């Protein structure tokens, strides 16, 4: 029913399909470029340090979120982080059931603002906040300079 008319046959209502289609290439940017080159070439994970307030940040940004000034100093991230929150996902990106659940974590690092939201390479029943984890990197040579160069985070032994 639309205001003053009614289409009698509901099958007459049409739908018009469309796709907001485009391909994207995103640059890592100024801060991201340094981070991903170090990760790819040297397996290092870096954060930034704001000269104004002293806060250390990861992931790195060109600016301090707090002071809104340019950040130029790079610092190494501690090897070990701690899981602050977990999520066990049982469906894929489209909502279809997954055979093996995925475990996601929010990982914090002592002395740093921020952290990573990434996969935890553990069984779902071990997904618990408080777990100490380390980054598991792809082998040198197969790294491309992207966040996927980190395969995920796993308990200390990895």
């Amino acid at each position: 029913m639309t205001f003053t008319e009614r289409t009698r046959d509901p099958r007459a209502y049409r739908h018009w399909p469309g796709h907001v289609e485009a391909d994207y290439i995103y640059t890592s940017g100024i801060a991201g470029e340094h981070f991903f080159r170090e990760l790819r070439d040297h397996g290092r994970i870096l954060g930034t340090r704001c000269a104004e307030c002293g806060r250390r940040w990861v992931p790195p940004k060109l600016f301090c979120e707090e002071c809104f000034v340019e950040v130029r100093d790079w610092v190494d991230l501690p090897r070990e982080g701690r899981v602050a929150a977990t999520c066990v996902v049982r469906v894929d990106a489209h909502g279809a059931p997954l055979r093996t659940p995925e475990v996601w974590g929010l990982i914090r690092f002592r002395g740093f603002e921020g952290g990573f939201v990434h996969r935890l390479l553990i069984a779902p029943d071990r997904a618990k906040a408080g777990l100490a984890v380390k980054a598991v990197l792809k082998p040198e040579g197969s790294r491309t300079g992207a966040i996927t160069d980190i395969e995920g985070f796993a308990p200390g032994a990895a």
Partner: protein
Amino acid sequence: MTARIPRWPGVELGPKDLESGVVTTVRYRPEAKFAWSAGEAMSRFLAELQEGRLIARNCTGCDRILFPPRMFCEECYRPTDAWVYVRDTGTIETYSVSYLDTDARRITEPILVGVVSLDGASPRMGMMHYFGEMSKDDIRIGMRVKAKWRAPKDRVGSVLDIEYFRPLREGEG
């Protein structure tokens, strides 16, 4: 101030830098698929196209025949009143002779495209479409044209059920 700024920010990249991995990048293709409800006005409009007809709505408030059809009049702000067929002949309001195809690629045989106001609708009301059976030297604003419909079996309920608008022949319309 602007005269005294030593360096304006921005790091320029060359055409190949994104492609060739000179800088690190992420490639992505979003999933953004839709099926827009055509609703009352456009469902009927499309059904009529499939039958080889162009339909409008009239508004007795402002005494206009609105094409493309709509269920409300944007001038009077009230529901429109009735379905009205308009003719498939009309006048070229404006056009372009395009040496770019729909993907902005260069072409040598130009596409003629423009806006046709339709006979039977209120002044200037019409649609965008292609023009055919005329050359870039013939086409002009004010030219009288008629729709070239696809064969009934090939029509699906789309503005593409009209192939293009062609010059109106003597004795037509």
